[in-house]
């Protein structure tokens, strides 16, 4: 059968592929990164401050419960000090990645995971060392570069498989199971390829790329990725490497004449400059001595409920066990009640051992 051209056919032809009624927007804006992991600098510092204050309050309370007056002479970490410690462990990720020869994507993803984790948690609850190891291991899996846990832990000194596995769920959960990350090094690679269409572009772009990539790597030590888009960071890195070419490239991409996105185009130079400043001022590893001091004090102000074997830890576990037990009993009695009432869904139950019905118990070891 041959289609007869008719007015209705043409309208359908125009409508069919564009089945999505919402106006077109960049793919990036549909990502979880755009939706859930973008902050203003103020939001970031407020968030960290709130987390820090909440953690201090909880720990103070726990210490007081154990021994009244004991929290008075504890010097808790400030939000800035926590952040400094996390930054140190960002540099450790880079070291481990070069040891394992992991691709750039693994390194960048792990760094993002670590930073995002500490927007939901504090270092006083979870020390960044093991969180960092877990974030990196998780990143190898989510970026499709798997490595066996044994190989992973045997190559890292003083690390047992449990150090990685125990936190894996916590980390995944803190990330909201949003594993996909848009990276600025990818954007930079695209720009470097695209730049070759410029008449001013040198024949060999590799030195430019390498130089700019180093700036992208420095940007990982900053909050840039939590504030700006990957392409903005990439452009800033390119601009640090080769200011002329970067501005020529961005000019070649700017639509001439007024456009609906005109405003964002006007804002771009300002954004680029802001990122450049951020990279040059904050994009270097922290002073080891200062961090060591923070780490020393962390030993004294860690949340005792998270230290295995401590008084508060055992008390917390006992409390959790009590709640779980109560919940199990409640479920069991509810199920029995349902059967006694002749509930239509209760009749099948006797075939199933009661323990199995309890969702939470299934994997108890």
């Amino acid at each position, binding site marked *: 059968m041959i289609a007869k051209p008719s007015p209705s056919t043409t309208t359908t032809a125009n409508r069919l592929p564009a089945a999505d009624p919402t106006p077109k927007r960049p793919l990036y804006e549909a990502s979880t990164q755009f939706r859930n992991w973008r902050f203003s600098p103020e939001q970031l510092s407020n968030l960290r401050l709130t987390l820090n204050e909440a953690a201090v309050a909880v720990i103070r309370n726990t210490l007081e419960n154990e021994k009244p007056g004991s929290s008075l002479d504890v010097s808790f970490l400030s939000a800035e000090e926590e952040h400094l410690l996390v930054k140190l462990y960002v540099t450790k990720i880079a070291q481990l990645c070069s040891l394992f020869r992991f691709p750039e994507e693994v390194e960048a993803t792990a760094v993002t995971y670590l930073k995002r984790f500490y927007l939901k948690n504090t270092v006083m609850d979870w020390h960044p060392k093991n969180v960092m190891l877990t974030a990196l291991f998780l990143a190898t899996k989510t970026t499709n*570069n798997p490595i066996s846990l044994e190989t992973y832990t045997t190559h890292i000194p003083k690390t047992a498989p449990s150090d990685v596995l125990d936190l894996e769920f916590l980390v995944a959960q803190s990330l909201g199971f949003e*594993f996909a990350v848009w990276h600025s090094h990818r954007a930079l690679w695209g720009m470097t390829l695209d730049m070759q269409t410029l008449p001013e572009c040198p024949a060999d772009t590799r030195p430019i790329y390498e130089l700019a990539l180093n700036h992208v790597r420095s940007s990982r030590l900053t909050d840039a990725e939590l504030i700006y888009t990957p392409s903005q960071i990439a452009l800033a890195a390119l601009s640090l490497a080769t200011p002329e070419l970067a501005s020529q490239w961005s000019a070649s991409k700017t639509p001439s004449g007024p456009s609906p996105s005109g405003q964002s185009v006007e804002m771009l130079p300002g954004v680029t400059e802001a990122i450049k400043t951020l990279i040059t001022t904050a994009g270097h590893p922290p002073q080891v001595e200062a961090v060591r001091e923070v780490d020393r004090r962390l030993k004294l102000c860690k949340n005792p409920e998270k230290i295995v074997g401590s008084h508060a830890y055992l008390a917390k576990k006992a409390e959790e066990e009590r709640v779980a037990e109560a919940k199990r009993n409640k479920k069991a009695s509810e199920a029995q009640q349902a059967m006694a009432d002749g509930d239509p869904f209760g009749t099948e139950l006797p075939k199933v051992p009661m323990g199995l019905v309890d969702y939470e118990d299934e994997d108890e070891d």
Partner: protein
Amino acid sequence: MSAIREVKYLRELQHKNVIELLDVFSSKKNLNLVLEFLDSDLEMIIKDRSLVFLPADIKSWMAMTFRGLEFCHRNFILHRDLKPNNLLVAADGHLKIADFGLARDFADPGYKMTCQVITRWYRPPELLFGSRYYGSSVDIWSVGTIFAELMLRIPYLPGESDMDQLKTIFRALGTPTEEEWPGHTKLPDYIPVGQFPKTPLRDLFTAASADTLNLLAKCLIYEPRKRITAKEALFHPYFTALPYPTHPSKLPKCTTHLSARALEEVDGNVEMNSTGPGVKANNSRLKRKLSSPDDGTSKTRSIARRLDFTKQGPPQSP
């Protein structure tokens, strides 16, 4: 590994023809995915002999499949396991692509991928010949075979082994020539499987329109680079020609799914206080049935999945 992939991609993809991941939560060592609930899948509908498919019905399913797939490809995601069993159908008739356990991002040029993907009957010849570099065209071949299956009501290319699969393909579509598919004899696992003549699609698909056969043929082009893309397919005259696609709510619906699911709930581990269907998968169900597409258990689809973080998946190609 497969659950991690599934979570990673479904968290990002939001489209009315892609299954929606409503929530993820963990209890102890399980990872539970809460997925949108869908009554049936295309395999059940195809096998339901009491249903009659009109050409407009097939067009509607194909349009929804291509829309969902175009969205995946636009997001640089290869599905790599398309088959009727993974095209789920909602109660309101909307088709949604599901099961992203084998999905991955497009690789950079020159980056090797595994060729051990896609259920055999739906696997394109370049993967059977061991090609480690491929793109979205592998999914298009699968859609082509599904298209044919919708018309025939039986699997179009049911090979019994990987070797037999190639023979089955060539028997149906003719052995490719060097001109048709340049360089295919240089692929890593190339083996000659005999010369089969080309028979026109019309001989088998006697009732199909010219547009239908034209789109089908373009999905089943041997040279992957010439195969139609999902976006091009959506602009194909087939979709704008009469008859227009059936409205999803008026599509044939499966009648047998209710009993199948009730059985699974007795076997499974039911969460008492959940509002949705909280059936947990056994570990054995998580394994892809790459080698036996006609496995009897494929009927009972598990709704929730669990992920064991302590176990490593099969080694993926670097």
